[in-house]
């Protein structure tokens, strides 16, 4: 049986517990997933190349600073680490140098949730995706959790 492509691209993933949490879905990417959007692909491409979604007020730059601003449009602000705080949800931006490569949701101290490009969502250990493709976590962000709506 041939190895799962996830294990080939992310050698550390196969050494830690993880689980697949969605089928393949090409409608959204990791940045969109971290921002809570599963209908669009987020990336700051610039004309004349085909545009992908990027918050209108944010510079279309492949920099950590621009990605921080992009997540800021959905309520996130920078914070020091990924430790869970009551009343807050957190995300983390991965980069190689200042070039963003990936973003994930912080589910718990030992579980993060990532959309793997055009592939599946997975829950994984915090360090499991570090490597050549995604780099490593460089910036955490947090926003207040929305209060659940009351059912009538």
């Amino acid at each position, binding site marked *: 049986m041939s190895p799962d492509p*996830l294990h080939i691209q992310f050698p550390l993933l196969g050494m830690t517990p993880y689980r697949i949490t969605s089928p393949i879905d090409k409608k959204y990417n990791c940045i969109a997933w971290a921002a809570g959007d599963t209908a669009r*692909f987020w990336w700051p*491409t610039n004309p004349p*190349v085909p545009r992908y979604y990027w918050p209108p007020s944010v510079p279309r730059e492949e920099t950590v600073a621009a990605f921080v601003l992009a997540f800021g449009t959905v309520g996130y602000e920078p914070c020091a680490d990924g430790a869970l705080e009551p009343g807050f949800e957190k995300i983390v931006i991965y980069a190689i140098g200042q070039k963003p490569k990936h973003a994930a949701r912080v589910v718990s101290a030992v579980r993060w949730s990532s959309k793997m490009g055009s592939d599946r969502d997975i829950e994984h250990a915090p360090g499991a995706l570090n490597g050549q493709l995604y780099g490593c976590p460089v910036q955490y962000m947090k926003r207040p959790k929305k209060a659940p709506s009351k059912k009538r």
Partner: protein
Amino acid sequence: MGRVVDYRTLGTVSGASQDRQCRPLAPAYFGTSAESMEDVEERDNLDMRLYREADDSTQHPHDTESLFAKLAANWKEQSRFMSSPAEMANLASYRQIIAIGQPAVPLLLEELKKDPDHWFWALWLITGENPVREEWAGDVEMMASAWLAWGKQQGYIS
């Protein structure tokens, strides 16, 4: 500093490609990061080799379809975990598809019909068109629909 290679001074690759615009794959088209002149020259020289190899396949349509199928499968495998359209478009298999030129257009559109994927960059580079409305940016299914509608209008697909 390295010398930048300009396709337009090198002539066409072969007779079959004379009606195909050979767009330079300049770094500005692939994301927003600055690149050194050496990177640009290395990329341009690689592009010329890819153009020649892909152009040889366009002499026989069956060869083009086989080559395209192989490259598309290869690209899907290599790009599946990427989130950056620029990074996806920079993969060698994607650039080889671009290098096939006009014969790849109906094949790309058939791919979009089967399974909407990030072929938009290739279609834009080959055709010079961009039928995707601004408000559809990032909506992969709408972007694919726009290209399919364009393809039917142009007679590439039924």
